[in-house]
């Protein structure tokens, strides 16, 4: 049986409409509507989106308003976002920020990095400063996107796990890693446009892995006692060697002819990878999805540990090595979405974890878990009825 749950259902009678560019005027128009909806009651608010994007600051203001508490310190209203036709740039970010995000089947979604309009003529100095600002901002937005979509993405991985075996057989590669199976399965479902961003994420992830293993071998220093700058200097030396090694057969390669740019990129890439290694969010992935990832026997063994904290610690220890590659691929994907223009269909957005559901498509979503009430087998049904009867009697006696 399917029982509709308001946290997953579009509700046009309690909704906001974001049409056209996101700017200060839109904030002015929406503010009274948001405040009125919030003061009427604390039920979910649907935000319908058809927008080419606009000013990131205005989008963030709208999000902050939507997440307001009230004078009774109630939690923020649950926000369901839905793209009807188009969500580009800041509008795409708003879409993914919903507690539950929905795409209409023919809608299109565009992700790209931050843009900066310059009115003054550019010089070498301002260009260099601008590059740093944009790189830094893109890193921040990539990690902010990661926080918004991580549950959706990890859910895609979990729900595809039982297809990994068939994928290995189909590709005659019994040794294929879980991550490669997942990457291959999703790739087959993407449009050509989305395949490009997927490819960028793969390349970025592969570069992380080879950079990390090379650099780790070179760093002999005792990391906990070394300063940040000392470790960075070791990393730079190791990246220089990595560049030389990789290009030793390429006579036209030099640091002057592009190599220095690659060195800088690799330095930031390595930082990005290392800063996400011990992430608390990865730990949460382990506790939420651990039992779906581990072999049944191991999961059962951990479930037998009585102490909750010890059980959780053991789960993280066992699952972390399995999820680490997926996590770093996911971080690479969030960064790849901030590079160039990434035009996506509604189904692409679903597979990349940017939305939870595509209207009318037969795709498993978080909604299915909460709305689907499995029919109980007859004996269990009888048992439940008996429990309900005795509970009613107890309540009546108490009254």
């Amino acid at each position, binding site marked *: 049986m399917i029982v509709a749950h308001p946290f997953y259902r579009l509700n046009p009678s309690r909704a906001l409409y974001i049409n056209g560019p996101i700017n200060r005027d839109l904030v002015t128009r929406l503010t009274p509507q948001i405040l009125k909806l919030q003061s009427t009651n604390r039920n979910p608010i649907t935000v319908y989106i058809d927008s080419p994007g606009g000013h990131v600051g205005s989008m963030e203001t709208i999000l902050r308003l939507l997440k307001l508490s009230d004078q009774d310190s109630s939690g923020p209203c649950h926000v369901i976002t839905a793209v009807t036709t188009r969500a580009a740039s800041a509008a795409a970010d708003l879409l993914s920020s919903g507690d539950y995000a929905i795409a209409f089947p023919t809608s299109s979604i565009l992700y790209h990095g931050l843009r900066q309009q310059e009115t003054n003529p550019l010089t070498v100095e301002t260009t260099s400063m601008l590059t740093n600002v944009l790189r830094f901002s893109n890193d921040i937005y990539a990690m902010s996107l990661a926080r918004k979509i991580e549950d959706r993405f990890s859910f895609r991985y979990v729900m595809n796990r039982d297809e990994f075996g068939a994928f290995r057989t189909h590709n005659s590669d019994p040794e294929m890693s879980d991550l490669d199976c997942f990457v291959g399965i999703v790739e087959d479902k993407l449009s050509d446009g989305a395949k490009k961003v997927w490819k960028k994420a793969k390349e970025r992830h592969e570069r992380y892995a080879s950079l990390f293993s090379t650099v780790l071998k070179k760093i002999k220093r005792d990391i906990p006692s070394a300063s940040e700058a000392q470790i960075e200097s070791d990393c730079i030396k190791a990246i220089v060697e990595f560049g030389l090694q990789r290009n030793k057969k390429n006579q036209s390669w030099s640091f002057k002819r592009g190599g220095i740019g690659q060195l800088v990129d690799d330095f930031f890439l390595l930082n990005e990878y290392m800063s996400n290694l011990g992430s608390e969010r990865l730990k949460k992935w382990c506790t939420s999805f651990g039992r779906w990832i581990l072999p049944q026997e191991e999961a059962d063994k951990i479930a037998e540990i009585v102490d909750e904290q010890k059980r959780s610690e053991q789960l993280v220890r066992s699952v972390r090595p399995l999820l680490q590659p997926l996590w770093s691929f996911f971080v690479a994907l969030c960064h790849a979405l901030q590079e160039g223009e990434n035009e996506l269909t509604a189904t692409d957005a679903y597979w990349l974890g940017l939305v939870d559901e595509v209207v009318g498509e037969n795709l498993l979503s978080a909604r299915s878990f909460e709305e689907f009430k*499995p029919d109980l087998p007859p004996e269990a049904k009888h048992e439940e009825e008996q429990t309900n009867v005795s509970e009613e009697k107890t309540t009546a006696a108490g009254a």
Partner: protein
Amino acid sequence: MKKAADNKQQAETKRQPTPSRSTREKEFDEAVERVYRRYGTDLSAFHRDVQKEMVKRG
């Protein structure tokens, strides 16, 4: 009379607090647990059953 009833209903609705993020996560975990107990790791079977129910509902 109707307005008074509406106001009362609205006040009741207002008093319903939004579940906190942790409560929502707990509810979702419970829903996942229900599915896990019934289907184990076989989410394809779960997906098939969901589809059947969707068709019935539609």
